C-alpha cells in the first residue's frame, strides 16, 4: 500500500512513464532473454571449435569457423543459392502480388470470396506444401511431373530432380505459397489510401497508368516496405519445403544456408559451425533490411517530397 501511495504522489508524467514501462517490460525481457540472448551466446560459440558430440575438443579458434566456412565451396554455394532463392522469390511474389492486389481492389462480394480463398495456401502447413509438390512433380508417377517429362517440357529427371530447374521450381513453390500473403499486405495498403487524393487524381484527368505511377505507388511505399521486409526475412530462412522435397539436392543445387545450419547444428551438433552460419544469416538480413530502409526513404523523398 505504501508504495502505491508513494507512487500516487509522483508527478503524472513520471507515473505515466512507469506505467508504460511496466506494461512493456515483460515482453521486452522475454524476447531479450529467449530470442536475443541465444544469439549473443551464438556469437560467442562461433569463436570456438565446439561440438556437443566431441565436447573434449572444445577450444578457442577466433574467426576460424568463419574462415573455414568461406573456404568451403558447399557453404559458398549455399549462400549463393539462398540469395538467388530469396531475391527471385520475393521479386516475383511482389510483382504477382501487386497485380493480384490491384485485381482485388474493387470491393465486391466476388472479390471478398476470392480474398478469403486466397488465404488457403498461406494457411497450409509449409511441410505439407513441400510434400504436395513433391508428389505432384514426381516425374514417374506425379500428376503433373509425369506429363511434363512425357511431353519433354521438363528434364526426364523431373523439375525438382534436374540441377538446372530445381531451385527455380522451389521458387515457384514459394510463390504459390506466399504470393497471396504479399497480395493481401499490398491490398491492405491500397485500401488504406486516402479516398480524396485518389478522387482528386481521377478528376484532373490523368491516365490510369499515370495515376498508378504518380499517386498510388508513392502512397503505397510503407506497405511495400513491410511486405518486402517480411517476405525477405522468411524466404531467407526457407527450410520446411526444401527439407521434404530435395533435401538440398540434386548435387547441392538447392542447398541453402538454413539447410546447412540445420545439418551442422541439429544433425552433427557442431555448435561452432552452426552458430557461424546462423550469424552470417542474421548479418545478411541486417544488411538487406538496411538497404530496404535506405531505398524506401529515398523513394519516399523523391515521390512525396518528404
Amino acid at each position: 500500500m505504501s508504495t502505491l501511495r508513494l507512487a500516487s504522489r509522483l508527478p503524472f508524467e513520471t507515473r505515466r512513464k512507469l506505467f508504460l514501462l511496466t506494461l512493456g517490460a515483460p515482453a521486452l525481457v522475454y524476447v531479450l532473454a529467449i530470442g536475443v540472448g541465444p544469439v549473443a551466446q551464438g556469437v560467442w560459440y562461433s569463436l570456438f571449435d565446439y561440438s556437443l558430440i566431441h565436447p573434449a575438443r572444445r577450444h578457442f579458434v577466433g574467426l576460424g569457423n568463419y574462415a573455414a566456412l568461406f573456404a568451403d565451396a558447399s557453404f559458398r554455394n549455399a549462400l549463393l543459392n539462398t540469395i538467388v532463392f530469396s531475391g527471385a522469390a520475393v521479386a516475383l511474389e511482389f510483382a504477382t502480388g501487386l497485380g493480384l492486389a490491384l485485381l482485388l481492389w474493387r470491393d465486391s462480394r466476388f472479390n471478398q470470396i476470392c480474398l478469403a480463398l486466397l488465404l488457403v495456401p498461406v494457411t497450409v502447413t509449409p511441410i505439407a506444401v513441400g510434400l504436395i509438390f513433391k508428389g505432384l512433380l514426381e516425374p514417374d508417377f506425379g500428376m503433373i511431373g509425369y506429363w511434363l517429362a512425357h511431353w519433354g517440357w521438363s528434364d526426364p529427371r523431373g523439375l525438382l530432380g534436374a540441377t538446372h530447374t530445381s531451385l527455380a521450381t522451389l521458387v515457384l513453390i514459394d510463390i504459390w505459397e506466399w504470393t497471396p500473403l504479399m497480395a493481401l499486405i499490398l491490398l491492405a495498403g491500397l485500401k488504406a489510401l486516402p479516398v480524396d487524393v485518389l478522387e482528386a487524381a481521377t478528376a484532373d484527368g490523368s491516365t490510369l497508368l499515370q495515376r498508378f505511377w504518380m499517386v498510388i505507388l508513392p502512397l503505397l511505399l510503407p506497405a511495400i516496405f513491410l511486405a518486402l521486409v517480411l517476405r525477405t526475412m522468411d524466404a531467407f530462412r526457407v527450410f520446411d519445403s526444401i527439407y521434404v522435397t530435395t533435401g538440398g539436392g540434386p548435387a547441392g543445387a538447392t542447398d541453402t544456408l538454413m539447410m546447412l545450419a540445420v545439418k551442422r547444428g541439429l544433425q552433427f551438433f557442431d555448435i561452432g559451425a552452426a552458430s557461424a552460419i546462423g550469424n552470417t544469416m542474421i548479418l545478411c538480413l541486417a544488411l538487406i533490411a538496411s538497404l530496404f530502409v535506405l531505398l524506401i526513404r529515398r523513394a519516399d523523398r523523391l515521390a512525396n517530397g518528404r
Partner: protein
Amino acid sequence: MTKRKPAVGLLALTALLVPSGVFAQAKPYAGITLALASQNDQFAPVLAKLAPQFEAATGAIVKVDIMDYGTLLTKTTADFVGHTKGYDLVTMDIVWSGAFAENGYTVDLTNWIKRDAAEIDTGDIYPVLMQSLGGFAGKQMAFPFAGYANVLAYRKDLYAAASLTPPKTMEELVTDAVKLTDPAKHTFGFVANGKTGPAGAQDWMQYNSQMGGSIVDAAGKPVINSAANVESLNVYKELFAKAAPPGAADYDWDGREQSFRNGTVATMETWSVGAPGYYDPKQSKVVDTVAIEAAPSAKGLPPRYGVGGWGMAINADSDPKKQEAAWAFIKWLTSPEIHKQFNLEGAGSFLRRSEMTDKDLLAKFPFLPVIATTFENGNGDYRPRIPQYPEIQDLLGTAVNAVLVGSADPKAALDEVQAKAEKLF
C-alpha cells in the same frame, strides 16, 4: 528370471484369488513407463501393437514414439548429449554403433548378455547380427532385434520374356538391366536410391562392396578415392543413366520401393524388410511375378552379402530401475516366441536361426532361405560402423548424387570426399 513364464502364470492365477495389492507385486516393473524411440520402419507399428502384451506380463508401460530417420537421429543424439533422459529405449541403426560406443551413449550390454545367455539362447541368434547390430570394439551397445538382409528382388516375367536368368554376378546384373530397359514401355532394368543424403550414400556403398570396393582400409582409415571405388562409381553412374527410371537420381527408399511395387522396374537390391510388401496385393502389382534371390557379387569375388538392420539400445542416462525394465523388454521382444509373433504381424525383422525354418513363418515369407544364406555368410561392415560414419555418409551422399546427375566426375567427387574425410580422423 529364467523361470519367468511359469511364475507369471502362477501369479496371474493368484491374482484372481487375492486383492490387487498382491497382484502389483507379481508384476516386477509395475509403475514404470519406458519411452521407446523407434525408426519408422515396418517393425514400428508392430512394436506399438505388442507393447501392451509386455505391460500385461511385467507391469511396465512401453510408449513407442515413431519417427523418420533424420528426426530419430537428431532427437536421440540431443537426448544423449544433453543427458535429458527422454528415451529409455532407442532403436539403433547398425551404422551408429561406433559413435554410440565412442561416446558411451548407451549401456554396454556385454555382461548382461553373458549373465542371461541361457535365457536368451544366444546360440540361436546369428553371430553376424549380434556382432554388427550393436557390437563395436568389444562392447555391445545395442541388442539386435531387426536383422535385414540385402537381397535381390527381380521380376520373373520380365526376365523370362527376355530369355534371361537372374544375375549371378554384378557384371550380369549390369548388362541384364540395360537389356531389360525400354523407356517407351516405361520399363526399366534397375533402380536404386540416388538422392542426396543417407539414401544415396547407403545404396552406393552396398553396390560398391559387391563390386569389390571398400570405404575404409584394413586399418580403418578412409580410402574413399581408391581405384576400385572410382571404377564402381563409374559403373553405377552408367547403370543409372542407361537402366534406371529417370527420376531415380532423386529417389530415396520410398520412391525406389514404389517403382518396384508398381511394376516399372525389373531388378532392385533392397533390404529384406521391404519384401513382405511385394506379396501384398493391396500395395503391390507384382505379387505373382516377384522373386527374391541372394544379391550377386563381382565375378571372381567371394559373395559379399550385405547385412543391416536395427538394434535396441538402452540409454546410459536412464535410472537403473528403468534400465533393468528396458533390458527385460529387450529379452522379451527377442525371445523366440514373441519375436515369431513380431514377424507374423509383419515386422520383417529376423534374428534367430529357428525363425528361418519355422513353418508358420515360411508359409508367409517364402524367401526366408535367402535371408538365412545372407545371414550365414553376410557382413555388416561394408558401411564402416566407425564414429566418423555419419559425416562420411553425408559427404558421400552429396558426392554420389552429384555424380549421378552429371554435375561431378566420379574421380574428382571421391577425391574431394577423401580430403574432407581425412580431416575427421
